[in-house]
């Protein structure tokens, strides 16, 4: 099933994500293209559970897909679709997996939400990837045109931390 078809088929609790999934389609498309298509199962970890995690499992039902998040919001949906869900606070806890376990880790639009030093988090992610395994990482670009324009207009592109702190979308790096 193609991504657009899947988005259009979303119902119930997931229906509310149609707009954001469509908006972020350009990013997801690159992630999809980077996931190796193998006949044999691979171990894949998606850090930061989202509806896209469900799509990955749908696209590759024979892959061992794991995910972790700091809340259990997606736990039931993951269990229903055969995804291994773990709760983990990346800022304070090690990843709950053994060394060299995963073939692929997807780490998209999460790093900028963390207060922990990025190098520390990346080293911990590296620990659970096998040698030769891959990480797919994306973060917002603080130097993007829209932020520059906002600065030129004399406004801050950073979110008001008094109101922005808290799940699910506090962009720490944009605020530093």
């Amino acid at each position, binding site marked *: 099933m193609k991504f657009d078809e899947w988005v259009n088929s979303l119902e119930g609790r997931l229906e509310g994500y149609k*707009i954001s999934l*469509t*908006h972020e*389609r*350009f*990013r997801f498309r*690159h992630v999809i293209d*980077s996931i190796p298509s193998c006949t044999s199962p691979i171990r894949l970890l998606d850090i930061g559970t989202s509806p896209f995690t469900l799509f990955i499992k749908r696209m590759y039902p024979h892959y061992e897909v794991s995910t972790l998040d700091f809340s259990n919001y997606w736990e039931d949906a993951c269990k229903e679709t055969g995804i291994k869900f773990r709760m983990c606070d990346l800022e304070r806890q090690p990843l709950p997996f053994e060394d060299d376990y995963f073939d692929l880790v997807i780490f998209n639009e999460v*790093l900028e939400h963390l207060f922990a030093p*990025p*190098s520390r988090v*990346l*080293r911990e992610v*590296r620990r659970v*990837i*096998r*040698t*030769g*395994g*891959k*990480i*797919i*990482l*994306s*973060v*917002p*670009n603080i*130097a*993007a*045109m*829209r932020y*520059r324009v906002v600065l030129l207009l004399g406004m801050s592109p950073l979110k008001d931390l008094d109101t922005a702190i808290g799940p699910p979308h506090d962009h720490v790096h944009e605020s530093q």
Partner: protein
Amino acid sequence: MSEIASKLEACGFAISQKKYLQPSAINALRQFRGGDRFGLLKAVYYATGLLLLVPSLRVTIFIEATKR
């Protein structure tokens, strides 16, 4: 981009792909048709030559790396 790429390298990854991403103008037009009143403006914005010529002005940093 270079900051996060160098951090990955320092942590033991070899960068295999890095690029800036942006939504496509066609996608923005779709959103406009779907009711996003700013979709047309976004479409013009994403279609501008500036963003095509200067990738560092795009909205997302995307990196693929391999564990050494």
